[in-house]
């Protein structure tokens, strides 16, 4: 039953009073001794079986490997689920990836999968594999907070389509992961329930807004997770935690039950530790949904086949577009160096590099930070203290409008308030044409830049983010400095195409992400290139927690 908790795990209300203390954690980079003990990602089923002897090792396997062991009945879904719940209980007081852990629900779902398998039912490749879900997707009967006090304690009466598809495919939902409030942020520091800590270095940010999902993967608390990407919220956390994050084509995954931030940009997508796992998860959650009017009525591209094709390591005939305007201004030298090594590795696999010019990309960040706040100011008007969540100041004397203003003042954090006010400003008469209207025209020009670039190249490539994980607290005092983390991820959101971030080495001991962008509905292309890159970049293993 929802609401029961495993040892040491908490509902959001308790999470605020039980903040992890990163101070007591030793600097993570100082303890890489056991780093080599992780099984290689291509561990055979036999190695997996041996690993199963110790439940701790089950958490190191990929989802594809777990799926094979489960299908062969060498492990049960209950064993796999319990191993991950144990891992969460052991490390999440330091990582704080989860806002809510549904241990009883997860074990019940795992038992159901085991029973179905025992009956001989045909199950999907991820049946029995655990997954963590960003706490901005509704889950029936299970708290959904959007990391905001305004929704604290709310238990939705319905599941998001993405969650429904996970359940139908037999995935086991472990719980809900932390994020920047309403997915507005790039560090998870804007969560109302305390930040998430990067497993690579607990004094640093895990990226955002989906820092909880990415950190859960890097800390081996879950083999798969769901994120949402509006301006980079899947890819940037993936980059700074050394994990894989994919933003599908806008409309390729359903927004039904995704609490809206910026409706023309919000896209749910898969987070994983390998490209193949991300593709497997993408295939489960993608596809047309009649409940989302912007859902594309077409089949999901063959992302799994493309990932397996890419894993062969042959990129002959593939043209990679290097964007002139992403030449490295404002990026850390170590990030640029790791990215260039990645490009060189891809050319050795047969890919050809062509330079493409996208002259309007430099206006993507300002356009985004007008469009997204404008849509946000409209979407978040629904939090009025009437139908769900918080109500403050209702003393029988105050008017509805006063209660509404007091409720929103108490329930929203500073970044959400800033964006609501920026959006209100950009949409107000007198400013509309110069701000929101002009940003929408720039959006057209950015989409045209992409269309022209894809005439010359199959995919576009760049670093995912200009800098590695930064120290907690170092950018919160200057909101615009935080926005710069999204420099490379935002253009493709405005265009609507898919993009993926894959690990590409280290800079100063911290992970660097390599971004691959593809044309609308050509999600398979990016998986092929990403899987090829994975074969030549040594796997990144975070230090032991």
């Amino acid at each position: 039953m929802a609401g029961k908790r495993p040892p040491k795990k908490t509902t959001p209300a308790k999470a605020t009073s039980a903040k992890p203390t990163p101070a007591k954690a030793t600097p993570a980079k100082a303890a890489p001794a056991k780093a080599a003990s992780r099984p290689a990602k291509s561990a055979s089923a036999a190695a997996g079986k041996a690993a199963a002897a110790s439940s701790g090792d089950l958490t190191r396997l990929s989802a594809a490997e777990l799926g094979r062991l489960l299908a062969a009945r060498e492990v049960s879904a209950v064993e796999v689920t319990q191993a991950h719940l144990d891992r969460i209980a052991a490390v999440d007081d330091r990582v704080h990836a989860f806002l809510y852990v549904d241990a009883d629900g997860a074990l019940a779902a795992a038992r159901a999968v085991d029973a179905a398998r025992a009956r001989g039912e045909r199950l999907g490749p991820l049946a029995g594999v655990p997954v963590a879900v960003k706490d901005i997707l509704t889950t029936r009967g299970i708290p959904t907070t959007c990391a905001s006090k305004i929704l604290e304690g709310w238990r939705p009466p319905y599941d998001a389509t993405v969650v429904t598809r996970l359940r139908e495919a037999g995935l086991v939902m472990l719980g809900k992961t932390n994020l920047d409030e309403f997915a507005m942020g790039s560090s998870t520091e804007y969560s109302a329930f305390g930040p998430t800590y990067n497993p690579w270095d607990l004094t640093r940010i895990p990226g955002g807004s989906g820092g909880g999902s990415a950190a859960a993967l890097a800390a081996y608390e879950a083999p798969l997770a769901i994120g949402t990407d509006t301006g980079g919220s899947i890819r940037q956390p993936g980059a700074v935690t050394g994990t894989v994050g994919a933003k599908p084509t806008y409309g390729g995954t359903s927004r039904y039950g995704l609490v809206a931030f910026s409706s023309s940009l919000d896209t749910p997508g898969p987070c994983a530790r390998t490209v193949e796992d991300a593709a497997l998860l993408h295939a489960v959650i993608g596809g047309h949904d009649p409940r989302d009017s912007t859902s594309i009525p077409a089949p999901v591209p063959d992302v799994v086949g493309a990932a397996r094709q890419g894993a062969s390591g042959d990129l002959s005939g593939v043209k990679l577009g290097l964007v002139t305007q992403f030449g490295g201004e404002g990026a850390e030298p170590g990030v640029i160096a790791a990215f260039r090594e990645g490009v060189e590795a891809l050319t050795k696999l047969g890919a050809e590099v062509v330079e493409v010019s996208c002259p309007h990309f430099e206006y993507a960040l300002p356009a985004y930070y007008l469009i997204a706040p404008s849509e946000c100011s409209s979407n978040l008007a629904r939090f009025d203290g009437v139908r769900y969540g918080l109500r403050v100041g209702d003393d029988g004397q105050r008017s509805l409008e006063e209660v509404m203003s007091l409720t929103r003042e108490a329930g929203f954090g500073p970044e959400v308030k800033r964006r609501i006010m920026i959006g209100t400003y950009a949409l107000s008469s007198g400013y509309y044409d110069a701000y929101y209207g002009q940003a929408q025209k720039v959006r057209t020009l950015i989409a045209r830049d992409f269309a022209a670039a894809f005439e010359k190249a199959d995919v576009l490539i760049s670093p995912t983010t200009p800098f590695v994980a930064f120290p907690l607290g170092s950018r919160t005092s200057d909101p615009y400095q935080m926005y710069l983390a999204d420099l490379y991820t935002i253009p493709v959101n405005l265009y609507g195409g898919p993009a993926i971030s894959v690990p590409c080495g280290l800079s100063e001991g911290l992970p660097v992400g390599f971004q691959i962008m593809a044309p609308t509905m050509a999600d398979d292309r990016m998986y092929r290139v990403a899987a090829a890159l994975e074969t030549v970049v040594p796997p990144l293993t975070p230090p032991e927690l």
Partner: protein
Amino acid sequence: MAAITREEVAHLARLARLAVTDEELDRFAEQLDVILQAVARVGEVAAADIPPTSHSVPLTNVLREDVVVPGLDREEALAGAPDAAEHRFRVPRILEEE
């Protein structure tokens, strides 16, 4: 020159139904000014003849069979409300008293 004044921020907060404090007004005025000056750069682009994009995917109407399906149960819909009475959402006073 500042892009936005403290008074304008107070006006925005009223429009957005945010009962911000004086201390917040000071801080937001400073921060919104930095943000607005940065995003105003979109004005540098010559785009007078460019059509605006509101959505990245060209949308066409999708029709479904006209079949009755159960919607959200009334009790479930009200279960998350801060206050409910007589099968309805209960709200504070809307009209001024006479």
